[in-house]
C-alpha cells in the first residue's frame, strides 16, 4: 500500500522510539489528533515526552537530550513557535560540535500551515535558522524524501531542521524535477508547500505556450544545486524564480543569489508578502498561489520580451 507523508512520519517516529531507544519531545503531543496524525500513540515510558508549556526553556531541555546523544526528535507544532524555541538550539546545539567537539544531534520537526491562523502560527519559518552555522535544513514534501532525510540524520551528528507542512501530509506522490524542454522560458525553484502550487502554475503557463521548468528544492542548507538545474538555467531564456512559503526576504533571496552567481542569470523571488498576517482571509498572508505564480512569471517574461524589442 502506498504511504502518505503522514504515515511515513508516524512510522519513523515509532521506529525512532521503539527500535532506536530515542526520545521525542514536544507540547501537547498526546492530545486528540496526535499532531495531525503524525505520531504513534506512545507515552513517556516509550520515549514520547510531554514538555510543559514553556517555549523558552523547552528548546534547552531538548538540547540537553541531544548532548547525551539521545538523538531527540523535537516536535514544534507551528513553525512560528520557533521564535521562542530556537535560541538554545541555534546557539548551543548547532555550535556544540564546533566549539566543544561534542555533537548535539537533534531532529526538529517544525510544522508549517496557514489560512486563518494569524501572524505567528502561520507559514514556514526556516529562514530563522538559515543564517546560522551548524544546521542542516530540509523541506521534504513526499514520503521518500522524508525517509531519505531521516536516514541521513541517523548517520549524521548535526542538527536537522525539517520544515514540514501540514498540507503535504496527505501526499503519497513523489515529485520529480521537470526540465525536459530543450530551452525553457523560465525555471521555478520551489520550496515546501509551494511545490504543489508551482505544478499547477506550470500547467496554466503551458497552456499559454510558455515553457516552464520545475526544480524541487529539498535541501535548503546546505543548498544542493544539481548540475541539471544549472544547465537548464544557463540555457533558459529568462532565468529562474525561487518560490517559498517563508517571507520573500529570507531563504528565497539567498538561494536566488547563489543560483544567479553560478548561472549568470537573473533569478527572481516570491514568498510571503512583506506584511503581517491577520486572521481573516481578507488580511491573511498566504504562500503564492498558482494564479499568483503564473501572473508573476507572465509579467517577468513580458518585461524581458519588451526589453529585447
Amino acid at each position: 500500500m502506498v504511504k502518505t507523508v503522514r504515515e511515513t512520519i508516524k512510522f519513523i517516529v515509532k521506529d525512532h522510539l521503539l527500535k532506536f531507544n530515542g526520545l521525542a519531545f514536544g507540547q501537547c503531543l498526546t492530545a486528540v489528533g496526535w499532531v495531525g496524525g503524525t505520531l504513534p500513540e506512545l507515552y513517556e515510558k516509550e520515549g514520547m515526552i510531554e514538555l510543559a508549556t514553556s517555549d523558552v526553556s523547552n528548546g534547552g531541555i531538548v538540547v540537553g537530550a541531544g548532548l547525551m546523544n539521545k538523538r531527540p526528535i523535537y516536535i514544534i507544532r507551528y513553525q512560528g513557535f520557533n521564535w521562542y524555541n530556537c535560541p538554545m538550539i541555534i546557539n548551543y546545539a548547532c555550535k556544540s560540535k564546533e566549539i566543544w567537539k561534542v555533537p548535539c544531534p537533534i531532529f526538529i520537526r517544525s510544522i508549517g500551515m496557514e489560512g486563518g491562523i494569524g501572524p505567528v502560527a502561520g507559514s514556514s519559518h526556516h529562514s530563522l535558522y538559515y543564517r546560522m552555522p551548524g544546521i542542516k535544513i530540509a523541506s521534504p514534501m513526499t514520503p521518500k524524501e522524508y525517509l531519505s532525510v531521516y536516514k541521513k540524520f541517523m548517520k549524521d551528528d548535526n542538527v536537522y531542521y525539517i520544515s514540514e507542512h501540514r498540507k503535504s501530509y496527505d501526499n503519497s506522490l513523489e515529485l520529480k524535477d521537470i526540465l525536459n524542454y530543450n530551452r525553457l522560458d523560465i525555471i521555478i525553484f520551489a520550496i515546501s508547500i509551494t511545490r504543489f502550487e508551482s505544478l499547477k502554475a506550470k500547467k496554466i503557463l503551458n497552456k499559454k505556450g510558455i515553457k516552464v521548468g520545475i526544480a524541487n528544492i529539498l535541501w535548503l542548507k546546505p543548498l544542493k544545486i544539481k548540475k541539471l538545474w544549472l544547465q537548464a538555467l544557463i540555457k533558459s531564456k529568462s532565468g529562474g524564480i525561487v518560490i517559498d512559503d517563508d517571507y520573500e526576504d529570507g531563504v528565497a533571496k539567498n538561494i536566488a543569489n547563489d543560483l544567479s552567481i553560478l548561472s549568470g542569470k537573473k533569478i527572481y523571488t516570491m514568498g510571503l508578502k512583506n506584511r503581517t498576517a491577520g486572521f481573516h482571509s481578507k488580511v491573511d498572508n498566504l504562500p503564492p498561489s498558482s494564479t499568483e505564480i503564473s501572473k508573476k512569471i507572465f509579467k517577468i517574461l513580458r518585461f524581458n520580451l519588451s526589453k529585447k524589442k
Partner: protein
Amino acid sequence: MKINKYELDVFKKASLCRNFELEVCNNLENNNIKFPVYLSAGQEYISASIAVIINNLNVEPLIFAQHRCHSVYLSFGGNIVSLIDELLGKKTGCTYGMGGSASIHSLKINMYGHDGHMGTQVPIAVGACFSSKKPTVVFIGDSAAEEDYVLAALGWASTKNLPIVFIVEDNNLSILTKKKVRRNWNIHDVAKSFKMKAFEIEDDSNQILNYQSFFFKKPLLLNIKTNRIFWHAGAGQDPGKKFDRYSDKLNKIGDQAFQIDKNNKKKIKKLWLKQLEKQ
C-alpha cells in the same frame, strides 16, 4: 584550630582556585590575556565545598556552569595547564582555544561548555539529566536565576523529580545592579513553590555540608550568599571592604592553611610561566 578532613579538603581546593584567579589577574594586568575574563575569586568556597561533598558521595555528576566558572572547573579536578592554555587562546586549551574564560568545558570531568546566554545551562542541564538519568549539578548566578527559561526549567525538573542540584552563587550583583533593584522575590522561595527542596545559606563549607543528605535524591536548590572580589569582568575591584570567606578560613585554620596557600601560589605561578614561555 583543629580542622577535619572535609574542611581541609575544601580549603585545598579553594586555595588552588584563589591562587589561580590571582595569577590570572596578574596576567590580565600584564596584557598576556587578550579577552574579557570573569574571575571567580571570592566565590570559590562554594564550588570547592560542593565538589568535596560530591566526591565524598562517590558521584561523578554532569556539571554545567556559565561565566565565572574557573573555580568550578578547578574544584572538580579540571586540568590546570589546560585552563591556562585556554585563557591564552591555545588549541591545547580545555575548550580548544574557543571558549575563552566564559565557556570552560572538559569532558574529562563531565563539564559542559556554556553558550554565552546567562542561565541557558539550566534547561540544558535539566534535559541532560532527564535523558541520561545521571546526577547533575548546575551553577548559576543570582542574575541568571531571573531568566524566564531558568524558572521554567526548575519547574520541569521538579515535575520530573530529577536527581539534580541547582547552586545559585548569589553575590547580590548583576554587573553592578543589586538584587533588590531587580526583583522583590527570592529564588529559593520560587523553588519551594515548585515543590523543590530549597534553602538560602552562606558560603561557609560547614553550612553547605548540612545539606549533603538532599543531594541527587530529588531536585535541590541552594541559594548561597557570597561576595565576588573582582568586577563582573576584568581585574578591577568593587569599592568598599567585603567579607572574604577564603581569608576568613585562612586565618581561622592558621599555619597549615598558610602553607597550602603558599605552595599553591608557587605552583600556579610556575605553571603560568611555563605556559607563557611556550607562546
